[in-house]
């Protein structure tokens, strides 16, 4: 393989890892279509490389977020039960579901979610919570950009767990980490501050992607020539992205997330309409 191709693969990983780590996604929504469309990588190799890249993004970003106490480990582990179960069941029944219908429905929903997030963030003000009122899964963290401690209580857990199940299911079908569903659900349905949602999603997506990647690895579908440059680029990008995310204001982070979600939604709807960028 020419050296320029290797550098391009690493560059794709770097961009995916930087933005993925900043907004709690794995970068798969960017990596898969770019590899398949612009670098002529076979779709199975692209999905396998993407799943390993999601694990690299998650591991790099989560190491920094957990150390800085931004990640809610208790909430992450609770939601992972339904996410991973959803991913496994998605793998079992995946062939019975129409990917076209799924892409159209989720694309439409995500456009509405991204627009709502962009508009809502201007007025987003969570009610003040005391240490005694955090509940079993609530937590607190120090927000560097605000210079204050943010406390939050987790609301509507059953809705969050149901959405996590769907996120796991969809991520198994699309070969991505599922952060594009987890972050908005945590922010909009569970009243979790965007910074905590991004870091908890980063923490969770590695395990979700691991369930899919194990299948690809066991079947010998992981091509190291494609995967290794992407993973090394992603690791560097995710390190940079996690550092940037801690310095950027939550409102800016929300806008970036809304833009990324909107772009992904358009891609899903185009895919459903037969214009497949992959």
């Amino acid at each position, binding site marked *: 393989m020419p050296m320029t191709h290797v550098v391009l693969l690493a560059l794709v990983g770097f961009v995916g890892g930087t933005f993925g780590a900043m907004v709690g996604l794995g970068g798969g929504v960017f990596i898969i279509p770019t590899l398949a469309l612009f670098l002529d990588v076979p779709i199975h190799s692209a999905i396998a490389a993407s799943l*390993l890249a999601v*694990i*690299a993004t*998650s*591991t*790099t970003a*989560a*190491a920094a977020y*957990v*150390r*800085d*106490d931004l*990640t809610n*480990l*208790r909430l992450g*582990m*609770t939601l*992972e*039960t339904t996410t*991973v*179960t959803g*991913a*496994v069941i998605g*793998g*079992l029944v995946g062939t019975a579901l129409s990917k076209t219908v799924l892409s159209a429905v989720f694309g439409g929903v995500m456009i509405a979610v991204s627009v709502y997030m962009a508009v809502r963030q201007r007025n987003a003000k969570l009610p003040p919570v005391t240490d005694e009122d955090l509940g079993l899964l609530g937590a607190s963290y120090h927000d560097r950009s605000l210079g204050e401690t943010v406390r939050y209580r987790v609301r509507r857990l059953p809705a969050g767990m149901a959405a996590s199940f769907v996120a796991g299911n969809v991520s198994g079908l699309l070969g991505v980490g599922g952060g594009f569903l987890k972050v908005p659900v945590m922010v909009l349905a569970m009243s979790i501050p965007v910074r905590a949602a991004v870091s908890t999603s980063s923490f969770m997506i*590695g*395990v979700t*992607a*691991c*369930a*899919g*990647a*194990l*299948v*690809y*690895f*066991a*079947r*010998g579908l*992981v*091509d*190291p*020539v494609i*995967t*290794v440059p992407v*993973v*090394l680029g992603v*690791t560097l990008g995710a390190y940079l992205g996690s550092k940037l995310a801690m310095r950027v204001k939550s409102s800016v982070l929300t806008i970036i997330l809304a833009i990324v979600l909107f772009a992904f939604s358009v891609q899903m709807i185009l895919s459903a309409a037969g214009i497949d960028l992959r």
Partner: protein
Amino acid sequence: MTRLNITISRVLVVGLLAAVAFMLAGAVLTAARPGLTAIHETSVADIPRALAHLEPSGFFDLGLLLLLATPVARVIALLFGFARERKWLLSSFSLIVLVALAFSAYLGLRV
């Protein structure tokens, strides 16, 4: 920062650094052998032999395997960490996730 946070962060950092180190070693070995035109993926059982012969594929595959093992290791660390804090419900959640991952690997080998 709690003791559990420190443990989990360390598990993630060690797993990631080990994985990246093996992948970079494979890249260096590939660059050092200009005549090497193709890299083939090896089976898990072949990795020790490939490493002993300094074949880049062995280093790449071990790196990728370590990367795959890192999320599993952190679920195991959380299982014991929550148990040590006597948070049995959260510990049992970790066990459920671990069983689901094992089932996923089993499906991959079977199907």
